[in-house]
């Protein structure tokens, strides 16, 4: 078990090294264009050369990479061109906002999709199964920017119950966070629901469930004790790996509702060409993704005795 964790950890570290190196190579191997981005389009070559020299850009590439990684590890991501302030100052609050959004999403999505999936998978082909299945196909077919359009039309413009933007200018507001979370949940729950349903349905047709029923133990216990544990192994990994896909939705929702989060920061930086912010955001995003993969691997092993003891 420890060996496995250690091995996973090593591979995680290796991936982070490769990703950060690729990123650095993509954005900073062309020194002059970095200087151009920082100093603006109207700077001349001399100014750029001077800037490069002052900022240590004339060191060998590998050395620059090592310094850059070292700085990043200590929380120094450089200086944002767009916001004219250290990247870290912009990054952390934005990340916090997105954590709230993603946390609320998980809080609602997980119980909802697991419950629906289990109910549907318990009896394949039953009415509840069909309703849940069709419902989840419908919602996963409507991407966030489309559902945000529909729900704004209904709740904001027609009924007028909710605000159309979530900029949180006067502090955190439940009314403003509602639509973004709702939109994310509507699009996201279907996938996990379907996974859970498939996993549950497979378990229900397995021979060990037959054994359990024919052992004469009550149906409730068959479900709770024998089926659930095995059926929830697969969805568990899916939920954690969803973080990878969630970021797309988060960006869309943050843009749509003007929510000041990490996603919007990344997108704005990309459109603006704010390379240090892009680099920082990408590193953070990949780290979260790789780390969640790590957690999911470890969790899967813990949940599944067939892997744990071999």
């Amino acid at each position, binding site marked *: 078990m420890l060996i496995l964790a250690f091995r996973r950890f090593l*591979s995680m570290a290796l991936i982070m090294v490769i990703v950060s190196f690729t990123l650095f190579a993509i954005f900073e191997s062309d020194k002059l264009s970095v200087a151009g981005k920082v100093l603006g389009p109207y700077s001349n070559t001399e100014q750029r050369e001077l800037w490069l020299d002052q900022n240590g850009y004339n060191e060998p590439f590998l050395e620059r990479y090592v310094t850059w990684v070292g700085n990043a590890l200590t929380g120094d991501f450089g200086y944002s061109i767009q916001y004219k302030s250290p990247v870290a100052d912009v990054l952390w609050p934005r990340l916090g906002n997105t954590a709230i959004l993603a946390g609320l999403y998980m809080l609602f999505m997980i119980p909802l999709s697991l419950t629906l999936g289990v109910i549907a998978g318990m009896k394949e082909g039953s009415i509840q199964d069909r309703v849940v299945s069709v419902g989840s196909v419908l919602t996963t077919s409507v991407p966030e920017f489309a559902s945000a359009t529909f729900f704004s039309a209904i709740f904001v413009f027609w009924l007028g119950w909710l605000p159309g933007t979530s900029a949180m200018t006067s502090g955190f507001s439940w009314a403003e966070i509602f639509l973004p979370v709702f939109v994310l949940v509507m699009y996201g729950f279907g996938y996990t629901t379907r996974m859970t349903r498939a996993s549950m349905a497979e378990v229900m047709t397995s021979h060990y469930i037959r054994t359990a029923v*024919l052992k004469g133990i009550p149906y409730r216990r068959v479900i709770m004790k024998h089926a659930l544990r095995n059926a929830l192994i697969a969805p568990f990994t899916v939920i954690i790996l969803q973080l990878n896909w969630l970021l797309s939705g988060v960006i869309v929702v943050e843009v749509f509702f003007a929510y000041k989060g990490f996603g919007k920061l990344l997108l704005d930086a990309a459109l603006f060409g704010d390379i240090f912010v892009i680099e920082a955001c990408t590193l953070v995003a990949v780290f979260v993704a790789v780390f969640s993969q790590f957690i999911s691997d470890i969790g899967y092993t813990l949940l599944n005795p067939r892997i744990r003891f071999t």
Partner: protein
Amino acid sequence: MEEQTPILECRNLCISYDTRGGEIPAVIDFNMKVMPGQGVGIVGESGCGKSTVALAIMQYLGSNGYIKSGEIFFHGRDMRTMSEEELRALRGSKIAMIYQEPMASLNPSMKIGDQLAEVPLFHEDVTVSEAKARALELLEAVKLPDPKRIMDAYPHQISGGQQQRVVIAMALLSKPDLLLLDEPTTALDVTVERGIVELVKEISAEFGTAMVYISHNLGLILDTCDRVTVMYSGEAVEDGTVNEVFDEMCHPYTSGLFASIPLPGADKNERPLVPIPGQLPLPHQRPQGCFFGPRCAFFKAGTCDQEKVPMRPVEGEEGHTVRCARFEDIDWAEGDHEAVTVKSVKSGKIVLDVKNMKKYYEVRSSSIFSMIRGDAVKTVKANENINFNAREAETVAIVGESGCGKSTFAKVLMGLEEATDGQVILNGEDLAHVSVQKRKARTVGHLQMVFQNPFDTLNPSHSVGSQIARVIRKFGVEKDPDKVREKVNELLDLVKLPRDFAHRRPRQLSGGQKQRIGIARAFAGNPAVVVADEPVSALDVSVQAAVTGLLTEIQNDLRSTLLFISHDLSVVRYLSDRVVVMYLGHIVEQGTTDEVFSPPYHPYTEALLSAVPIADTSVEQKQIILKGDIPSAMNPPPGCPFQTRCPRKIGSICETEMPPVKELSSGHTILCHLEDDVLNAMEPVIVTHSEEKIA
């Protein structure tokens, strides 16, 4: 037998499944009575409805199955009128079931002790610790080693044989009145199967449990049951005591079934195999009248193809019933089915010579990181010192259970793996270190294989004809498209299939037909040696004989050498000239068929012979039950490979020293430490009642 209420009675039971194609009757008009302490067998081939009966008794038919009509009485009460709660109280407590696949039947993420303890917890008023104590007791009763450890283990941590013992323990926990066994040993090796069957017999005698034993194996039924019901295509066709059905069978299907299975007690010339022609009808293609009609040698138009045939009693034998319209009139001598005869062909020069062949695998963790760390590499000795040869037109059987190294050997032979050491000489050419890619097309064509599983021997995406044609072109037999087509037709003729089968897709063929195509493919390059890896073990019993017969017939005609890999000693005895017995990568015995089947034996051969279920009431087998399971090839025992289970172990020499290869007579060798006088004093394992020594 005095008059008492049967434990279980099925009356006119009809079970159907709803499918896309409409209602499919799985079991039709089924009757059965099980008295207390009695063992009743249900025997039949795949799809005959025998497992459906068991699940119907448990009232567990899935969402699309249902009992259409008829009754099932348990202790005189109709189970169909019971509530869910009443059923629940019966299941696992009064009626318990043992399943075909023990691994799949146990919850993978729950400790065995907990799974066992559930039974008393939900059927009796006991505390958790009492339930655990009972579970432990039963694990001891089913003779599991170290039951305390097993209580705490997960199912995947113990072997298949042990899992099945756990399932048996689970079934017996609440001392049921009735035990249903659905092919409980089919997934296990022969010697492990023997142990389980003995256990079941002992336990039913000890607890007085009534049993319904479902199997396709007539030998096992004979061994375990008092009565037997033979089923065919959803119907019971014959019902009676074991002796009545086995010795005085009245239904043509029953007699056909017996005639088509080889018996290791019988000589092939004395009792030739007679296959049943045709194949089992699909449920929606069942014929009018008698379902067996189209395959029956005694079929009479006008009698057998009219209305439904009822079960009728045999005169003078109370309780022996038969579903045949004219069994009284049958003259058994008149049946005109062609028998499979294995001609004794004079063997020629040595074609294949294997000398000191060794195949070791290095097993290591596959990830990059363990390579960087240089993890210890483990060596698996899959084949150790393989020495044997095969002559032209000869049939050599390679016998062994799982892990014995027979499939590794086949891979080396075919050039998919390179031998670690030694020689494999085919027609004077050493192939031990020549992979198949580097062999000449002719050589590849000279060494071909027939595979085990008919369901994936053919590529489902391509037509049968194109697959045969590919082989013909690949081996350089023919190049011209017309000639290739002609050759495909010839090969189809050879395996007795119509020529238009060339246009068919594999899924349109039955298992037996696919296996015939597999044979055609193997013989496309006029092979010198054909390796047949359990070629019929996955087929239905009644089809097996025909395919076996075809294979040997072609082999005889073309004077090819056949290496017949099998675990089934009955078939081996039947068709091979010489036998090689393997255990854990070693050849433990080899010799002519007669030498191997008669004493002196290697202790493992002796145990194997004693483990084969034999469907012949006149045969008596010596009881040798091997302890435990086959050790893993990853972790073989020191000294003699068989020492951990050997009933004739002499002492520490077996644990420390590899036994010598003893040559008992020219060509008959045994790998054993036993002294000559002990070997010579061995008695035959299989004896018929007439005291005549057979094997």
